[in-house]
């Protein structure tokens, strides 16, 4: 009988410990995502896109980040009052809707489909779908040269389909979870080109120390906007953001940010559309 009570006690202790641990882990899990109100602005960016939004040494860098900082500063927040959060492509709408973030700058194209769920300010940049190739490869000058070649894009993106349907029927597609995998594949020679928006490619090419280059003939236009929550005050908020973007373009801050992000690639944003006039959502 004593045996049994000891066992029971052990069991109970174990259970209590388990519960305590569960609570600790639960709290820890929420702690990082917990809301910290007060005077901060929460901005959703990409954490994994060199040149646009990338987390490095505890800080964030890239063109989206620079624009976000500038807007926040203009709205009256200091750098230390900006909280950056990761906004993966598939969660952007949800994050805005449930108030996880106040605005999103994460290569977020303005589309009619998305406007049903969220509001936009901007655009702050007009990107275009382009190709990235190895620096020593001169055979690919545009998407029409891709017949019989191999193209890499990211799982779930439509950019590869655009190339296949509109330009090169004979292209072979490879899907990878991220652009870094695509770039690795490109470097090793198993694919001949990577496709997505030119500014993303320029950021990657800049990180490749001269081994990759952007073709530089964008064949679509993507208007990058600042995603904000759809509510009564969104119009006012969008107007403020647009004013900030305009200010940034005027002072030359905007151009400097692009140069920083694409250093060493000789990349120039499509001059036909850039810098764009931010008038969305007003």
């Amino acid at each position, binding site marked *: 009988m004593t045996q049994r009570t000891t066992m029971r006690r052990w069991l109970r202790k174990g259970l209590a410990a388990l519960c305590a641990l569960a609570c600790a882990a639960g709290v820890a*899990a929420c702690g990082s995502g917990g809301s910290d109100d007060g005077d901060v602005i929460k901005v959703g960016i990409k954490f994994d896109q060199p040149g646009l939004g990338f987390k*490095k040494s505890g800080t964030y860098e890239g063109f989206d980040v620079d624009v976000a900082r500038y807007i926040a500063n203009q709205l009256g927040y200091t750098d230390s009052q900006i909280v950056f959060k990761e906004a993966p492509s598939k969660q952007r709408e949800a994050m805005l809707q449930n108030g996880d973030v106040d605005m999103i700058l994460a290569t977020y194209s303005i589309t009619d489909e998305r406007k049903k769920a969220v509001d936009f300010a901007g655009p702050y940049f007009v990107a275009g779908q382009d190709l990235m190739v190895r620096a020593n490869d001169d055979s690919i000058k545009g998407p029409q040269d891709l017949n019989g070649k191999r193209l890499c894009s990211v799982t779930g993106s439509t950019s590869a389909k655009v190339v296949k349907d509109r330009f090169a029927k004979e292209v072979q597609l490879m899907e990878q979870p991220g652009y870094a995998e695509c*770039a690795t594949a490109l470097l090793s020679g198993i694919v001949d080109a990577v496709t997505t928006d030119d500014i993303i490619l320029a950021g990657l090419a800049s990180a490749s120390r001269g081994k990759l280059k952007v073709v530089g003939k964008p064949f679509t236009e993507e208007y990058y906007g600042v995603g904000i929550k759809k509510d009564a005050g969104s119009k006012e908020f969008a107007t403020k953001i647009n004013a900030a973007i305009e200010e940034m373009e005027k002072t030359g801050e905007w151009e400097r940010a692009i140069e920083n992000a694409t250093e060493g690639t000789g990349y120039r944003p499509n001059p036909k559309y850039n810098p764009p006039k931010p008038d969305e959502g007003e």
Partner: protein
Amino acid sequence: MAANESALLFDQPGPRMQKRIRIINWAAAIVFIAIAVLILLRLHNPPDGENQLSWELWKPALDGEAWADFYLPGLWATLRATFLAVIGAVAFGLLFGVGRLIPNALVRGVCGVVIEFCRAVPVLIMMIFFWRWFAFMDMPSPAYWSVVISLVLYNGSVVAELVRSGVGNLPNGQHEAAVALGLTRTQSLLSVEVPQAIYAMMPAAVTQLVVVLKDTALGSIIMYTDLLQESRRLGSMYFNILQTLVVAGVIYFILCWLLSRLAEWLPVRMQQRTMAPTEAEPVAPIAILDPSNVNQIAVAREERPLGGSQRLYHVHHRGTNASIHNWRRTRYTQGYDETQPQSQVSKEGHQHHHRPHPGRGGRPKSDDGRS
């Protein structure tokens, strides 16, 4: 262990054989080393692309910044998900495992269906669904909770089967003694059998922990920023993704390996607390719907004393309600060892044919012994 196995198949070799073995040994070693060297050479000097062994690529994968900004946060995310998933899985497993044993047919049926369902659906399918669904429902951090819930459901169903086989492997005497004390079937189950089953399943649960840890890596497919995902990110900075993945792989391996060692060390400790055999590996619920296989395999794993002949009787006279189809009827047939009549309930106790219906109660347990 190796010595025991080798004793199975060949005699102690004589001088000539020893010489031949030595030659084959060296030849094989040279072949294996050659394969490894060829692979390394290929990586060092690929047809096109970069030298994958250059320090230029390895340094950013190993320096302090990489650890502080990528591996350690990723590892923390992985461990956090693993930890919560294990706790959830144990809770889920206890609930449904016990549910599958209690006398009420309805509860048993429902628990059975839930367990079999969770065991059959691939974890990745569950993860993708929960991820999109949680995001759809506006839940915060959907990827994290999706990883945790999916792992809880799958591993919980495995733990449930472990509970069931743990109870099934208790000696009959435990249940009988409880009943003799006036406990009901459910009471005996909850206060005598299940607590012992928990100790018995502990090593197997630790082995399952390895599975959980490995499966969190699936989370990277749904963009959960675990160790694997973080190492990919690090790799996208210097295009050394292969190197960062190797580092992540080594971390996973070390953790899993340590846990496996723990699972091997645990049985001895746990055996002091239970009458059921403690197993390092969750071999129990092997064939779906038939946990009684555990006896067959447990017998197979028994040590052979003096390196010799098979045991005539087994360490544990186990058996019993592992298969609950006929739990009352077969608990005496199963686990009966003809060579040890004195250790068992006498055969006259029941009249029906010695072998339970094939395919239902599993193998008749007289097979554990010799005939």
